């Protein structure tokens, strides 16, 4: 049941896809190199894990655009349209509160890591260059949630997609 979403350019969706591709390439490269040469580039694990973070929050933002996060939809199917809109706003408000807190404290954390010159434990790179992506992508999720709310209030609903878990 392939979901054919409108393929507009979404930077966070590209970022997440590239991150997944990078994880595949690094991991596969590691397997091949290990069998071919008895060496491995274990140090790349720091990059792989960082790609996983990009994948997580970038993918979550892309999913938020079309309301594709796993949730219980029962109540919406049982309410009159006006109340339904109120529920949409409440859902949005809860999401935005959580993401707002993530943006705020994520930026604080990134700022502190920058200010105190913390280094990454594996490769010794400045740690803020990793951490900064958390508030940035949380902000992206927040924006996508809001765009989705506007769509839903206008009566446009995206194609529903079911995700695994």
């Amino acid at each position: 049941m392939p979901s054919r979403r409108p393929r507009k350019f979404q930077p966070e969706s590209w970022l997440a896809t590239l991150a997944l591709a990078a994880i595949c390439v690094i991991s596969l490269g590691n397997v091949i190199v290990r069998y071919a040469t008895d060496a491995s580039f274990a140090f790349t694990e720091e990059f792989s894990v960082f790609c996983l973070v990009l994948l997580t929050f970038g993918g979550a933002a892309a999913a938020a655009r079309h309301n594709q996060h796993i949730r219980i939809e029962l109540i919406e199917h049982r309410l009159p349209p006006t109340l339904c809109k109120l529920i949409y706003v409440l859902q949005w408000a809860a999401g935005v509160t959580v993401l707002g807190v993530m943006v705020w404290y994520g930026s604080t954390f990134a700022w502190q890591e920058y200010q105190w010159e913390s280094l990454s434990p594996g490769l010794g790179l400045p740690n803020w260059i990793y951490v900064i992506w958390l508030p940035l992508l949380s902000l992206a999720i927040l924006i996508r949630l809001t765009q989705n709310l506007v769509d839903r209030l206008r009566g446009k609903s995206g194609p529903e997609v079911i995700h695994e878990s």
Partner: protein
Amino acid sequence: QYKDEYTVSTVLPSAFPWGQAADKWVELVKERSDGRINMKIYSNSQLVAGDQTKEFSAMRSGLIDMAVGSTINWSPQVPELNLFSLPFLMPDYAALDAITQGDAGKAIFAAIEKRGVTPLAWGENGFRELSNSKRTIQEPSDLDGLKIRVVGSPLFQDTFTTLGANPTQMSWADAKPALTTGAVDGQENPLSVFDVARIDQVGQTHLTLWHYMADPLVFAVSNQVWSQFSPEDQALLKQAAIDAGQWEINKSRAELDDTLAAIKERGVEVTELTQAQHDAFVKATQSVYEKWTPRIGEDLVKQAQKAVTNRDQ
């Protein structure tokens, strides 16, 4: 206004000397404050979702009130703490004590304070020994191609790369599964950890006593919490930490022989290095000093080396 309960973060729980050090601190503080100051221990770095290298940052931002932490795990935030990770800097316990109890120790506490956390006392995690699932290790070339789990600082990356091994940085929570599945061939940890965590059960059957470094533990308090205590209580917390640390240092050193015997009994092959073999490792790792001395601080490294040379023996 004091909190009902203060959070204390550790990496290892009560079964290990590390966890016992924290237990003792909590117990002494509670006793001496007549129950006014209560602390609760969260082990396995659970307050930072298992990522022990984020413990220091979390303490600085007030997410964690107190911690008994390892110098290795805090070195991403406090570069001076890499001092203890310099390979083969400290040949024995006297050398370790000479550093922590001397001027070098004071300089390190000042560095920790400068980075936003109040250090109180030293504890001990012990000399770290090398184990692996593949072969006996007696000389640097035996390490060729072995994938070794390390934690916390790129210095380890350099030490093990220099020795021809393949280091990978990984938190303790991820390490045991990785050893179990053979994703990683070896690891380095104090004997007490090797013993209690039953690392022999995950195929680590070759153990080399090479004493290449020891990571002291540091008892510390977040500045945000520290400033709220009265001067009397600050002194109380500090003295309790010093006493708990001394108690734990004595205890873990006294237990060492029994621990080693227990490990041997389980069929682990234990290799002790001869002086010549030891020297070969020292020689092989000199490049690490050239690279890391500027980052740690020339003065501090010199101070430490002097303390080691002049130690009581």
